[in-house]
């Protein structure tokens, strides 16, 4: 059924079924677009930076602009130490999510970030990194993250409970935010675009009125481009904020 808006999120195997040690490793359309996004991002950076000219050309300027953009963001939120330790991780996450979102904007192509397992894997990776780096660097002092200073003792126990809950709900909201934005955006586009053929089929007057959902589709498409960039930016920025907690746990 072509009008089913959920249909675009179906995962189709592109290779014969492949099982490696109990893990389903079949090459699907989702895997293809993830590999394509990573390849394009890495290939573009390698190709654009190959001349490494002192006065950059157009493509080298774009690559340097993206590099400086993420570099500045990590520096502002996680400090100089954060740049030294975590810049490659944040840059990789940002470029991967950005390319996955952008490839998904092409009609009939697939956005891997519309699968919650993809975003959840990345969120758990960040969460585990924060825990491991936090305890490895600060030892037991990392637990000071949950104990804000300057709070009277009779309210402190309650604040600690809230801080612990909010810490452990981070990976959940981190993963859900990206997934829900991409998923709901693509769903909304398909639903509104689906109004057009129905209205055209219903008669002359409604056919003219179908220009309204058509215009809305174009407007939402433009908004989705903004969302595709913004959610990659927000994911990378939240990663920086969480990693900053691992480096400097005191409030």
């Amino acid at each position, binding site marked *: 059924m072509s009008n089913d808006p*959920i249909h675009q999120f179906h995962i189709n195997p592109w290779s014969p079924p492949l099982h490696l040690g109990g893990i389903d490793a079949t090459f699907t359309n989702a895997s293809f677009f993830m590999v394509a996004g990573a390849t394009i991002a890495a290939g573009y950076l390698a190709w654009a930076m190959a001349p490494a000219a002192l006065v950059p050309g157009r493509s080298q300027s774009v690559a340097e602009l993206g590099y400086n953009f993420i570099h500045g963001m990590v520096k502002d939120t996680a400090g100089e130490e954060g740049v030294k330790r975590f810049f490659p991780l944040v840059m990789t996450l940002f470029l991967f999510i950005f390319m996955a979102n952008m490839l998904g904007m092409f009609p009939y192509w697939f956005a891997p970030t519309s699968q919650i397992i993809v975003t959840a894997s990345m969120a758990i990776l960040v969460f585990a990194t924060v825990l491991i780096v936090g305890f490895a660097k600060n030892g037991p002092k990392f637990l000071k993250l949950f104990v804000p200073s300057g709070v009277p003792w009779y309210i402190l126990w309650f604040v600690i409970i809230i801080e612990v809950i909010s810490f452990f709900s981070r990976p959940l909201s981190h993963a859900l*935010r990206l997934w829900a*934005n991409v*998923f*709901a*955006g693509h*769903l909304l586009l398909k639903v509104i675009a689906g109004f057009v053929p129905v209205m055209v089929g219903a008669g002359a007057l409604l056919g003219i009125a179908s220009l309204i959902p058509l215009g809305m589709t174009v407007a939402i498409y433009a908004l989705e481009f903004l969302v595709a960039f*913004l*959610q990659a930016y*927000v994911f990378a920025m939240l990663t920086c904020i969480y990693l900053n907690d691992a480096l400097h746990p005191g409030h």
Partner: protein
Amino acid sequence: MDANAAKLIGAGIAAIGMGGAGIGVGIIFGNFLQGALRNPTEAPKQFGNLIFGFAVTEALGIFSLAVALILLYAK
């Protein structure tokens, strides 16, 4: 009650959540404008924070929209 009718009512209730996100986004941009008009030279430096707050707030509305659309269309 018919299961299908319950699904449609549930989707409608879930969509109410988007109103909350609308209030939140309005507060963010309204307060940014207020601050920006008082101190226009400092305003561009806060643009990143503005967009960040917008995206974080907007995501909550998107959650309820996703719930509503899943109720309507998922099989």
